């Protein structure tokens, strides 16, 4: 059964007004709220109510003073940084008489919490007009339908949510020479483009697992994993794509597999139908940078006939498309680096829509998802649906 486990800390607002009862002064942090992560430049807005003059409002983050406002509007801006960590934001209002009032908001990093089982469906939506992405849409521009029924959006955001990525790189014999060098350059570009809050794992495979890192923030670890590896052996896309999706399963937020391969699986033990099932039960997107001049050629092996291999290939395409990712076809090896960059840019520019499906029966059935944008001439792409588990 697939469940989205959301941290209580993300949803709960901690309202701790202390001292206000004794004084004729009170405070409330209006922004930020606790239901969204805080990164980068952050503005803290404090609503102050007082029967006497207020001299200043101090804002503390994790106990450290980050700014003081001496007049209304009571606003302090500070740099939160990119770390996905718990933060306590506290505002202290000082009145002329010496009375004070405080109010705190606690945010927390995204984490697993088994106590809360919320089946929030998150949709990562790429909106385009022609070749260009549309970036100025608001929450009200979107309509989400789950099995044909309109859904109420609970969360809305764009782009800057932390990313958890698996870079799944085919280093089989067909990648020898310039190809593997170009793959390394492209992957390096992608990793260097990640922010400090983004996590990634590097997985190199052929017909066997050659190297795999856990999810880490540290780019040095990831870049080191890309180091010299001989391109050798056959290809087992299914097995290691399944592994990657499974690795992403307990993570929350925006999850993505970037697969670099010609897609010609020969040696997997797990059929692609199982990978498709795994993709449908999860919320990870699959982006496939498809090598080999964008052409799928039928082939035979001791494991599968031509027809069976064709079915495997088509099922992989289906898994990618249903996941809301896409296939980036490469006709020349020189395009690889740009392909990685384009995918990262796309991920940064996606809208993130969250809703609680109005009808969940845990019956394993397919829910078709559709996103409409209330603006003419634009196209929205997201996952096709999910299995109700």
């Amino acid at each position, binding site marked *: 059964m697939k469940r989205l486990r959301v941290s209580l800390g993300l949803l709960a607002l901690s309202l701790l007004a202390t001292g206000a009862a004794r004084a004729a002064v009170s405070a409330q942090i209006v922004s930020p709220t606790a239901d969204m992560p805080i990164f980068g430049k952050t503005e803290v807005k404090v609503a102050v109510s007082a029967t006497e003059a207020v001299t200043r409002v101090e804002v503390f983050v994790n106990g450290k003073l980050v700014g003081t406002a001496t007049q209304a509007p009571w606003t302090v801006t500070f740099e939160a940084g990119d770390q996905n960590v718990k933060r306590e934001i506290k505002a202290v209002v000082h009145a002329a008489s010496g009375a004070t009032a405080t109010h705190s908001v606690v945010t927390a990093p995204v984490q697993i919490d088994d106590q809360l089982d919320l089946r929030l469906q998150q949709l990562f939506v790429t909106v385009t007009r022609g070749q260009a992405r549309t970036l100025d849409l608001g929450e009200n521009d979107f309509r989400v339908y789950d099995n044909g029924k309109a859904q109420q959006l609970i969360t809305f955001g764009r782009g800057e949510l932390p990313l958890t990525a698996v870079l799944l790189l085919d280093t089989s014999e067909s990648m020898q020479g310039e190809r593997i060098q170009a793959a390394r350059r492209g992957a390096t570009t992608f990793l260097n483009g990640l922010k400090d809050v983004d996590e990634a794992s590097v997985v190199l495979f052929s017909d066997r697992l050659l190297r795999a890192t856990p999810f880490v923030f540290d780019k040095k670890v990831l870049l080191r994993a890309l180091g010299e590896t001989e391109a050798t052996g056959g290809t087992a896309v299914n097995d290691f794509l399944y592994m990657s999706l499974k690795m992403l399963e307990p993570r929350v937020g925006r999850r993505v597999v970037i697969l670099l391969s010609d897609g010609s699986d020969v040696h997997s033990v*797990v059929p692609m139908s199982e990978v498709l099932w795994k993709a449908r039960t999860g919320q990870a997107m699959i982006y496939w940078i498809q090598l080999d001049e964008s052409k799928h050629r039928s082939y035979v092996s001791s494991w599968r006939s031509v027809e069976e291999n064709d079915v495997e290939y088509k099922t992989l395409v289906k898994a990618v498309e249903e996941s809301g990712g896409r296939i980036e076809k490469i006709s020349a090896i020189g395009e690889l680096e740009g392909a990685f960059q384009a995918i990262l840019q796309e991920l940064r520019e996606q809208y993130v829509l969250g809703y609680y499906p109005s009808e969940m029966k845990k019956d394993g059935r397919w829910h078709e998802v559709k996103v409409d944008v209330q603006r003419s001439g634009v196209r929205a792409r997201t996952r096709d649906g999910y299995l109700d588990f």
Partner: protein
Amino acid sequence: MISMMIWKARARAAIAGALLCAAPLAVSAQAPSEDPFGGAVTATDVSGQVKRPAGRRADVDAIQSRYRKILAAWAEGQTARAAVDLMALETSVVTDEDPTTRKQLLKAEQAVIHEVGAANLETLVPIAMLHHETYRRYLAEGARGHAVVLGHARAMTRDLAILYREQSGSEGAALVSSRILTSLGGMLQQAAQQLPAADMFQLAAEMDPRNTAALLGLATVFEKNARYEAAVDALRHLIAADPEHAEGKLRLAVNLHRLGQIQEATTLLQGLTTAPADDWVAALAAQELAGLQREKGNLDGARKVLEAALERFPNDPRFYVQLAAVLDRAGQTRSAQDLMEKVLTVQPAPETAARFLYNTIRDETFQAARRFLDENAQSRLSVLAQALDTPNKASVAVGVAG
């Protein structure tokens, strides 16, 4: 399935061709216009009765002379020199642009072969191995622009093997010829020439029904061409010849599974997971057995097979992934997740993965056959030297260099 009838008919044609060589004077007038071997050693001019265009006589004589020297070098054990010289000779005579040039080469080589073969039939074995070695080298070098000469080397090896078998008629000759064809089939298979490879394996298996390498090669060709019933047939012959052949049993089980014969496949796979077998065979048997249980809906059975396999192969990431997939289907997602955490701590095994080996033409399959040939060719070098009236100083192995 390639019919046994067709093969037997071809074998009979081969025999007829061989007989032509045995009695050239008597039958040359009746020689068929089309060579039943496809033009290798059966058309005969050893009697000198075949008329040639006047201007080409000298060429053929020169080729014969060079070929004789090459055979002499081969008989002396100068493996590399003889093979390289033969390649130089053949590529200087035969061109892809004019395939008829092959006839000139063929006649010249034929004349010498008939001469030394008439002196002693056993000379055919080392000569076949010289052409076998030449073919191997052509393949290794790519033979770009030399397709005709590549085909010539292959046809010479094949036809000499058949000729030797039919002329000798002995069991020993059948064993030797069968292995020449098996080795040739292995090279063809590695060059991705599946159907010619099947031809060789089939002929080899007919000459020696206990030739397990030929039967295995034949089964793998059928398997790659999705002819699973034919593969099963070949593999049953293989198991009959060697009941302990683990790879044969594995492939038989995999193909029976494809044909829906689940019970027999299950029994074979269970036997392989418990009996001593090569690691790659045992690993694959466990994977396939678990897959079979999974298909039957027996998730618990699949889990048990994979957990046992993980005890034997704790560093094989594939078992972690396969077991995770089974546990996911069983709703044990947390346990499946634990496996994904463990797999990241595994030091991946450096050896080639089992599934890769199954899909690969491995030299090991043909090593025994080639060793056998080396020994047999070696022991006949002195005979060849004698037939060529050349002192025998053989000291190196022939036939399967590299």
